């Protein structure tokens, strides 16, 4: 998109292609481009470069509108949910590191009692962070692990409880019912005001992510998103539709497999990366 280029249909098609390839989705892309065209007319924009800036601004506004900071008061229970393989367990390992570095007392709850070696995996992360972990036998009831986890957290004065859950597809009714039960136990045993439910989304996911966000939000009141694997080549544009349709903000991004590979979400950086 160079200077002196004229503003025509070809330019808009090129911008549309950038957004579609970034997984922004057809409907959201059309909406964004339409709003941008209206603004361009209103502002009598003549240069192609200004058009791209206007587009970036449009997306930035979607991500920032109604923005409230992610303030963690002690004690807080963070329930980590999402479909299979997106990075929930690894992200908990990173969050534990972040909060320990902030001087908080962190407790891990191994409520994935289903997948092979899931508890072992979280135990490794507990060890790396030198923080305690509450676990039961593999195959036990996840809600009871959460119950015990909350009890232990209160007894030990934990500031942050990070609760891992098994990956589950949102269209599996019985698995979503199991998750709702876990959430109910958490609400009942822990002060409801201090529960954050973070949905982990894989940046390589396509339009199905919007349905994931919708169903998980209906089930367990998702309050934020963690977008993982942004160290790859996928742009994660799905979070734009999710913000605009469901008003769920992105709180963190995962940028690698290491303990430090977690960053707070920055709308400006995110938008800039879309166009790189």
């Amino acid at each position, binding site marked *: 998109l160079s200077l002196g280029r004229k503003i025509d249909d070809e330019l808009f098609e090129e911008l549309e292609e950038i957004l579609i390839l970034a997984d922004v989705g057809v409907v959201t892309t059309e909406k964004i481009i339409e709003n941008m065209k209206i603004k361009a007319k209103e502002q009598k924009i003549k240069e192609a470069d200004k058009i791209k800036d206007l587009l970036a601004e449009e997306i930035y506004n979607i991500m920032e509108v109604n923005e409230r900071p992610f303030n963690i008061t002690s004690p807080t229970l963070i329930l980590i949910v999402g479909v299979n393989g997106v990075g929930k367990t690894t992200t908990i390992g990173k969050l534990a590191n972040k909060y320990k570095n902030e001087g908080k007392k962190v407790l891990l709850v191994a409520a994935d009692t289903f997948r092979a070696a899931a508890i072992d995996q979280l135990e490794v992360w507990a060890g790396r962070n030198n923080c305690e972990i509450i676990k039961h036998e593999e195959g036990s009831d996840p809600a009871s692990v959460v119950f015990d986890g909350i009890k232990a957290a209160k007894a030990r004065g934990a500031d942050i409880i990070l609760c891992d859950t098994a990956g589950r597809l949102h*269209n599996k009714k019985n698995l979503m019912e199991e998750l709702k039960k876990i959430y109910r136990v958490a609400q009942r045993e822990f002060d409801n005001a201090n529960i954050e439910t973070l949905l982990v989304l894989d940046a390589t996911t396509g339009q199905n992510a919007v349905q994931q966000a919708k169903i998980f939000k209906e089930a367990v009141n998702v309050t934020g998103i963690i977008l993982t694997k942004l160290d790859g080549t996928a742009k994660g544009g799905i979070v734009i539709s999710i913000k605009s349709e469901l008003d769920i903000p992105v709180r963190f991004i995962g940028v690698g497999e290491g303990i430090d590979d977690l960053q707070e979400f920055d709308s400006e950086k995110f938008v800039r990366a879309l166009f790189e």
Partner: protein
Amino acid sequence: SLTGKLQDIFKKLRGKGKLSEKDVKEAMKEVKIALLEADVNFKVVKEFINTVTEKSLGQEVMESLTPAQHVIKIVNDELTALMGSKESKINFSDKPPTIIMMVGLQGSGKTTTSGKLANYLKSKGKNPILVACDVYRPAAIKQLQVVGSSINVPVFSMGDKTTPVDIAKGAVDFAKNNNYNVVIIDTAGRLHIDEELMDELKNIKDAVNPNEILLVVDAMTGQDVVNVAESFNEKLDIDGVILTKLDGDTRGGAALSVKAVTHKPIKFIASGEKLTDIEVFHPDRMASRILG
């Protein structure tokens, strides 16, 4: 549904008498949207639309009393043809063991699918072993061992302080000396842009010469799947693809994108977390799923 949308478009057009090129292009816009919403890659969609537009401008559609049905059939047939043949064969070596290497992005389902494949081949009379070449992910080896023990398939491991290349070589020797005729190598998830880790896969390939290199792809992957598939294919010349998590409600357009860009067959699909949830790939079923 796409069928419904196309029927509505052609219903509006029928009052105008004979179908024009413009009418067909109008219908094709709906097909384009349907494919993009199904996560088929933008560039793959463009090419696909050009092909089916050309076919739809033929006499049969233009003079038909039911143009919508014709266009739908053309789209469906073209999609099914692109999805490839129904052959989901593992190419067994005439000098056992047959060596199968599972590769792909983080979290795509390699470890679980390795177990499913072992279980499937066991039911077909083969004698497989699983090989733990993921020395990075916490408890990865344990995960494969739990999977292996649940289906009574031995897991070859040399711990996580040995290189994946040495583990793979050790596994092949072990298989030969103990009459295992299939070796399924589970590797660590990695980014296609991680040069060092992609080299590691190439080194494993060069060391043990797999008969099958299978790219494991999550069916809900979006536009980026073409970059991933292209890179893995360029680096390793993969033999096929396994599409996972098809028990979800994603339309799975990634299937078409991967096929279009690599021209390699989709050999199996995985549709669940149980080790029996693997099936032969059906191109026609995938085509209608993508179209919605």
